[in-house]
């Protein structure tokens, strides 16, 4: 983890509402799939808090990209950045997706919902590198959202890719959990490992489906973050406590996660509602 200043290299719209921010850093930063950064335009007054963004791509250790959806004040401020502008950055943060070499699990099933895709592109690359057979389920609200969430980069990886959109403008109409559930029923769930990132409700459903079919399931959670480095204890998620530990029945998404085993999470306690 370092605190540094990134310089905006590009900040382009992918489709309306979705942008990709590429930052250059003076120092080399080694990133593992699933890790994130806390970002904020340099010397900004508002909003105060930095925003958490997954590292989408590491072109090299000095040039990192972030894919984001413009939702509120913070992402709107990031969207205003122009090449040459500076960004305060704390990174890399959080634990990475665990990837075992081929063999230990037969099939990796990656389920991305909306801009949760940003956290799994590098995961897919690592899975490919590790020789793990991988399939991707990619859900979005619409074709615009799907492309905005980086669909073309996923297509370029040439993995089996199932697309759903809520409005049916691309792929299967409906939620990504439907084809995902069909697929787990068709194969031997216990020999697959599910990796999921997306809205809370989606991950909750993915976790249930995986559990039904005996598949191991990992989720990358979101939570409103004050600091991103474990200090404010604001980003917690309720967990099934198995051992006694310092953080009671809650874990911090920023340092204890964002990747958790799905069966560790108390899905009944309300999570991130966005």
């Amino acid at each position, binding site marked *: 983890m370092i605190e540094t200043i990134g310089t905006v290299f590009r900040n382009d719209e992918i489709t309306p509402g979705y942008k990709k921010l590429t930052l250059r850093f003076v120092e080399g930063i080694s990133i593992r799939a699933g890790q994130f950064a806390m970002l904020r335009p340099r010397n900004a007054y508002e909003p105060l808090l930095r925003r958490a963004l997954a590292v989408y791509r590491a072109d090299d250790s000095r040039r990192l990209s972030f894919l984001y959806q413009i939702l509120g004040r913070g992402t709107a401020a990031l969207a205003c950045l122009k090449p040459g502008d500076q960004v305060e950055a704390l990174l890399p943060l959080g634990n990475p997706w665990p990837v075992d070499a081929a063999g230990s699990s037969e099939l990796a099933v990656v389920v991305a919902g909306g801009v949760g895709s940003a956290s799994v592109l590098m995961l897919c690359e690592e899975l490919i590198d590790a020789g793990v057979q991988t399939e991707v389920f990619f859900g979005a609200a619409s074709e615009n959202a799907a492309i905005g969430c980086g669909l073309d980069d996923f297509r370029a990886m040439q993995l089996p890719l199932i697309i759903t959109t809520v409005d049916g403008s691309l792929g299967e109409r409906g939620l990504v959990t439907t084809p995902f559930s069909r697929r787990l029923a068709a194969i031997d769930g216990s020999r697959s490992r599910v990796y999921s990132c997306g809205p809370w409700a989606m991950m909750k459903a993915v976790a249930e489906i995986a559990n039904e079919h005996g598949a191991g399931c990992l989720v990358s959670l979101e939570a409103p973050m004050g600091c991103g*480095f474990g200090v404010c204890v604001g980003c917690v998620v309720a967990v099934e406590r198995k051992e006694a530990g310092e953080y009671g029945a809650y874990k911090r998404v920023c340092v204890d996660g964002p990747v958790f085993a799905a069966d560790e999470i108390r899905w009944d306690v309300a999570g991130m509602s966005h």
Partner: protein
Amino acid sequence: MPIQDEADILDTNLSVEIAGVGFRNPVIGASGCFGYGLEFSELIDLNRLGGFCTKGLSARPLAGHPPARIVETHGGMLNAIGLQNVGARAFIEEKLPLIRRYDTRVIANVFGYSEEDYMETIRILNDGEGISLYELNISCPNVKEGGIVIGNSAAAAARLTESARRLSERPLIVKLSPNVTNIAEIAKAIVAAGADALSLINTIVGMAIDVNTFKPRLSYGTGGLSGPAIHPIAVRMVYEVAQVVSAPLIGIGGIASAMDALEFIIAGATAVQIGTANYYDPLVTMKVIDGLSDYCKKRGISRIGELTGATFN
């Protein structure tokens, strides 16, 4: 104040003393915003820091409130963490040995649901080696038993201070609540009851509502407002208290720059604590130390202590 040539003064003495304890400089990490200090070890040189306050410690570990615990507002944030902490015993055993590797002042922030709770925590902490002072948090708006915050009543606060003072083997700072009609009066009562120093302010009770669900955005309902938004309120309170007590004051509330800190010092504070700004600018404590030093050098101020309460002159 004549502006002198930088060359005139070799260096400003930034050190201050609070209740007989010397601090390298007046910049202290605020409770709940500086973890157990260790979280910052990768980011800043803890040996340059004046000191820090631990997250509020209670006799037993606390799990805290369910999410959502924080909400950003204009110029600030609301929090209702619910004092999640490892407990005083685990703090001594697991954290203090690591903290002792650094040369900075450690202030243990003490919290309880009842007087007995507070006393229990102090008893445990008295065994801890490397703690310089206690800070009695009688003002957390996010945990109350029977709806009462001790810090909002002069009598209750004085009673607790007296007991804590008797038991404490270290100088005692009492942290004031801003959610009161007359903070100066409460400050007087607490100092009369034996507090060695006062820190102020804690967060101001606030609320944010989700207009889609009609529910409060924090699980606890209300939360404590912190950050730049509250700075002018905090400066006013330090000023008011400085007029009626002579115990050293530690100013807290919305500090994000050396200038913000200086307002507190000129209003009457001996030192300052920085809270929320650490979240969005982890280097803020170092920047404030450098900024104070620059400010003093430019003005030929040889000891930062000269500035405390300068507004009264």
